[in-house]
């Protein structure tokens, strides 16, 4: 019953169906809950010429750039824990990737404008005093007179409407209602700005669970195109309430990223020679055993409940008015009907 959903499909199918070469790809995570199961599948399917949009990333862009999937990047920050040229830096040269630098706020603002279906969003003038402005100027921003206060200039960023968003969240129901909690980053706007939305989740829950926590739903089901159930789908990043970041695996990746050959072996071992996320985790436990994963598992720390109750109890409250009362109302008139 719970799995009866036309939107439920394998990650392989979802990426095949909804991510096309040349698409603008919204990577919605901002540090936490990176959609790595989806990213790995995009790489496995050798998608090309993607424009990636992501405010702050861990190594999502490093992977995609290094594997030759990108032609352009719109971002503001990339996590680095090691010195040296990373896969991203090499990929930029090798695949001639265009890099547009923004700030976290302006990427978030462009996505929010896209999500709200507005043409642009105001940014703050602090950018005017930087080389982000000096380098890009009117190519990326517009500086206009504030029509409500002619003495003031206002900097604008345009809306972004990505073709497809990839999201990893905690839970989803069979209708696609996607729930995320903890730090929300840019996930909601990154998803809702996009034309198509692929949601991978740690688990599918019955409708009733979602309907008992409506304030945690960040994407309503009718906006979701594909639902993929991927436990450990954000590994090696973290998912609140499920598992911590695998800092050692992140370190291992980072160490590989600075060398062309190590990177190549890493992606062979963990992406190309792996069928899907299930086998990725199997491979992980083959290599390191269950212990490291066990140590990452979140302990139970349940949120405090809120009362969603109203005064009525029944499924449908029937008002206490006698049918005779209604039929006696002067508005009533009679018609004849054929009972057949």
């Amino acid at each position, binding site marked *: 019953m719970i799995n009866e959903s036309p939107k439920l499909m394998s990650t392989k199918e979802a990426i095949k169906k909804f991510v096309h070469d040349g698409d603008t790809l919204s990577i919605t995570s901002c540090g936490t809950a990176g959609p790595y199961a989806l990213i790995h599948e995009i790489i496995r399917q050798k998608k090309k010429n993607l424009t990636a949009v992501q405010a702050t990333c861990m190594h999502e862009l490093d992977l995609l750039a290094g594997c030759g999937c990108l032609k352009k990047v719109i971002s503001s920050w990339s996590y680095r824990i090691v010195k040296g040229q990373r896969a991203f830096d090499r990929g930029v040269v090798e695949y001639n990737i265009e890099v547009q630098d923004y700030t976290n706020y302006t990427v978030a603002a462009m996505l929010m404008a896209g999500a709200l279906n507005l043409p642009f969003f105001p940014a703050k003038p602090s950018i005017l005093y930087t080389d982000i402005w000096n380098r890009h100027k009117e190519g990326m921003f517009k500086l206009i007179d504030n029509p409500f206060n002619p003495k003031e200039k206002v900097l604008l960023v345009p809306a972004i409407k990505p073709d497809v968003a990839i999201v990893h969240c905690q839970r989803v129901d069979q209708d696609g209602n996607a729930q995320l909690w903890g730090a929300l980053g840019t996930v909601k706007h990154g998803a809702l700005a996009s034309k198509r939305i692929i949601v991978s989740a740690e688990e599918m829950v019955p409708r009733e669970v979602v309907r008992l926590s409506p304030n945690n*739903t960040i994407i309503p089901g009718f906006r979701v195109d594909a639902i993929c159930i991927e436990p450990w789908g954000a590994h090696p990043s973290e998912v609140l309430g499920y598992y911590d970041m695998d800092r050692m695996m992140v370190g291992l990746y980072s160490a590989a990223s600075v060398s062309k050959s190590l990177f190549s072996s890493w992606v062979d071992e963990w992406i190309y020679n792996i069928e899907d996320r299930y086998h990725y985790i199997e491979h992980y436990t083959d290599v390191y055993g269950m212990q490291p994963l066990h140590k990452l598992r979140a302990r139970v720390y349940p949120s405090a409940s809120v009362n969603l109750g109203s005064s009525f109890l029944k499924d449908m409250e029937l008002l206490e008015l006698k049918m005779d009362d209604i039929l006696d109302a002067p508005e009533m008139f009679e018609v004849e009907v054929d009972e057949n």
Partner: protein
Amino acid sequence: MKIKTIKLTYEEIMCSAASRELNDGDVVFVGQGYPILAALLAKKSGKNLTLIMEGGIIEFNLYRPPIHIADMTAMKGCAASCELIEIFGYYLFGGYFDVGFLGASQIDKYGNINTSFQRFPDKRIAGSGGANEIGGYAKRIVIMMRHGRFVNELPYITTPGWLKGGNSREEAGLPGGPHAVITQKGVFKFEKDTKEIYLESIHPKVNLKKLLRSVPWDLKVADDLKQTPLPTQEELDILRTWAPGVSIGRARWGFRQLEFLKQLAEERKQRNLKYEQKFSN
């Protein structure tokens, strides 16, 4: 043929007719009052609908007829709750509402709407509420007009319909447009090319001539003008048990409630009086 006589009201016919304008799978932005009743009937008839209210309630259940846009009776068991601006920006402006279900107090030949502003042009809240943008960006607008009327020129336009007809709405860059108008007299649709309103079906026992006289222009009538289908007995039962105020008129229902409250206060006063007398003795 077996003939039976049933009693019903035109409001009940309106709700039933409006429910037929909703299709299976529709994402529906529902206004308060009659639209919500029509949505209930459509749901009960087995159509899978996603109902949305602008206060920030997505995919809700109907336990009791909500009376405003953030009514808590709709919050129990909804799939998502959010902010008002999110409903407009993310979903309405994005073109994700298949149907925008509106009320109207005045409407013109091309489905342009005056939601409620009528008498004090400078001194009242216009009362567009959410209707302006809903009328502008939902794919199909379904309008239920109970007390209102058709006018040649709206004294105040709150909500765009087909503007001046023809391609004028499209040229203005607005998607969608009015799809049906349902009144106590009949069901109206819009001509494909001119976008002028015409009578598609007439409710039982309504006099066509009178109806035509009540419209201040030469109203077009469908060649194959039908009678609006009656609500089924099941539909009538649902409406009467779930929202009796609608069947018999909201004013009477409200009046009945007030009477009850006054009676309560009176009883209470008498009881207090007795106490006072008791303790003053």
